[in-house]
């Protein structure tokens, strides 16, 4: 189980109603069920460390990443923490599916990453 550190006030946002939750970009589809998770880990590492893209390092310490933030858990031994690559992908696609209070941005659902960037990042994080 890997819940991103939740923010209690998030409960409030929920209680305020769905309309407030939908303030962001249009609600994109769920992760495509047939998504091919065969990205390029090296390219994913660049995305994970790019401020304008994945920017995973803003919140997560990762091996080799400089000046990481401390909001989310350290990304190591990932394969011991997710049963499948797909489960990890779902978490990165939209962490609020598993935990409505999750702070992590929904990288797939809100189209923060392109599909290629998304599968590349999944491949990289899965390799940690």
């Amino acid at each position, binding site marked *: 189980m890997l819940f991103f550190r939740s*923010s209690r006030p998030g409960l*409030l946002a929920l209680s*305020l109603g769905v309309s407030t939750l939908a*303030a*962001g970009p249009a609600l994109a589809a769920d992760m495509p069920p047939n998504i091919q998770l065969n990205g390029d880990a090296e390219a994913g590492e660049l995305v994970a460390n790019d401020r304008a893209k994945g920017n995973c390092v803003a919140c997560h310490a990762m091996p080799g990443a400089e000046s990481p933030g401390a909001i989310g858990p350290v990304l190591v031994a990932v394969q011991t923490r997710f049963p499948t690559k797909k489960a990890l992908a779902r978490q990165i696609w939209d962490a609020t599916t598993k935990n409505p209070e999750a702070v992590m941005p929904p990288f797939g659902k*809100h189209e923060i990453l392109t599909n290629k960037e998304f599968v590349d990042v999944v491949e990289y994080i899965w390799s940690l």
Partner: protein
Amino acid sequence: MTKKTITLIAASLACTLSLPTALATPEQDKETFQAYFESRFPNVPEDDFVNGAYAIDPVGRENWEAIEEFPPYETAISKGEEMWETPFENGKTYKDCFPDGPAIAGKYPYWDRERGMVITLPLAINECREENKEKPLKYAKGPIADIVGYIAYESRGQVTNVEIPEDDPRALEAYERGKQFYFARRGQLNFSCAHCHMGNSGTTLRTEILSPAYGHTTHFPVYRSKWGAMGTLHRRFSGCNKQVRAKPFKPQGEEYRNLEFFFTYMNNGLELNGPGARK
């Protein structure tokens, strides 16, 4: 304070703040809001929250104290004082609009029951200018930050004391809207104000320490090194909205005025210490 206690308080905060209006009064919201930060940061004296991240970051504080020896907002204060003293073309001055001035920052924001809206200090300044046939100032930066900076400086030591009149339901509604704004997720990145500045305050985003929300309203306008200039509270609101990739609202529009009303109320009891210097 054990972790369990903190969690309990945090949970009760979320519950209290999320109860229907009839049950959670602004006063109760404020108590839970402040108690949350007092238990999250048990080593910070209450009157030190006005110093933002520097209340919890000893290294940052050292740098900040060095900066405060020759404050970068000093020029703004002098310019603001000159604006205050210089008569308008019709011979009148700001003093004619604000007889108790310049130390009036503690009176804002307030609920104007006749107009049915929240009045902030920058709004009142521009209304004074327009009454005297002067052009209104832009709200985010520039001369507005100078004159508000001077007024803030003269008002140092006043205590935040926003009142929400109980006999006007519209005031409570404005407060509730501000509260909803504060806790609503927004933008492509899907963060609420509270996600960073309550739930994750004190942790680090890259190497930056997220400042506690308690104390945020006391020290504006600020000279921000990132801006290389002064900016108003609404400039900061707008910057935060852009950072989560949301479309910012208009400075002094209804959304930000209501947000300021709620947010300043949460800080009731804290001393005003503006203008400030921030990274």
